């Protein structure tokens, strides 16, 4: 039994292995990009809108309102990053209904990459909001003794993001695999439905936590 989709390799090329994680990530990227390009070909600005444009508008305005509720005053600056995080993890979980598909977020490499993006984005947004000196000074708030703890908390928050998403996705897939060998009739379907629900909740959690970390860095440093 393989622990993650990293171990199913399709072809080699020198030292580069094309494994299932990369292929399913490409499929999700293609679906998101091609679907959005198709729907936004003819945007209608007023009057009755088509059904698919309505769906996209609902998604975008919901993400905007959630970002505003977390504390970021101007969601337009952040919705590109946070919205993409949410949509990628949500579509990766939703496509589990397709048979023969393994979510790429069930591999530690994908979740670590996403967490590293958040790790890099938090100082970037913090420096853009208030400048380098103000961001660095926030590490010694409230007293300089807190400096190592603040640094450690930055690193451990990122690690927790990666492991949380990886653990939830991998455990869902593994429980279904184990159940298929014990009671293959109805129970695996129930567990797959639970895995879908957990996947959507984890996508929301990932995006909201990224937004909270960015808000902690950007809004407290805003001039």
């Amino acid at each position, binding site marked *: 039994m393989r622990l993650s989709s990293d171990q199913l390799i399709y072809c080699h090329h020198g030292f580069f292995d094309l494994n299932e994680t990369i292929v399913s990530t490409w499929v999700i990227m293609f679906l998101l990009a091609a679907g959005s390009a198709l729907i936004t070909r003819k945007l209608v600005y007023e009057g009755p809108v088509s059904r698919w444009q309505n769906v996209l508008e609902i998604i975008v305005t919901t993400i905007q309102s959630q970002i505003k509720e977390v504390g970021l005053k101007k969601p337009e600056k952040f919705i590109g990053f946070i919205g993409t995080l949410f949509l990628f993890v949500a579509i990766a979980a939703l496509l589990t209904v397709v048979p023969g598909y393994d979510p790429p977020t069930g591999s530690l490499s994908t979740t670590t990459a996403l967490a590293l993006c958040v790790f890099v984005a938090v100082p970037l947004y913090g420096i853009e909001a208030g400048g380098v000196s103000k961001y660095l000074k926030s590490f010694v708030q409230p007293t300089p003794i807190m400096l190592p703890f603040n640094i450690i908390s930055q690193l451990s928050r990122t690690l*927790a993001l990666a492991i949380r998403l990886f653990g*939830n996705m*991998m455990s869902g897939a593994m429980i279904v695999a184990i159940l298929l060998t014990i009671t293959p009739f109805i129970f695996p379907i129930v567990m797959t439905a639970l895995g879908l629900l957990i996947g959507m909740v984890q996508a*929301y959690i990932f995006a*909201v*936590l990224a937004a909270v970390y960015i808000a902690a860095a950007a809004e407290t440093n805003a001039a």
Partner: protein
Amino acid sequence: MINMTAIAVASIVTAGFTISIGCIGPALGEGRAVATALTSVAQQPDAAPTITRTLFVGLAMIESTAIYSFVVSMILIFANPFWTSAVHVGGK
């Protein structure tokens, strides 16, 4: 091959204890969190969206520790480096 037996026994027993003990704390904590959230929603129903969202974020943070112990037990069973190196040495 007593070395291989010791590694296997230690890994399996530790994996069992890790997942069973590691799930007690988060389960108790999540129960208390949901109970408090339900009480506050009953007291102030129009704050229900904020309370529900905070509840889900809090539940995810509490769940993380259970996920850590699950990942450790999975590593002990499926991706155990001591076992693979013992098999590599013993198979030669």
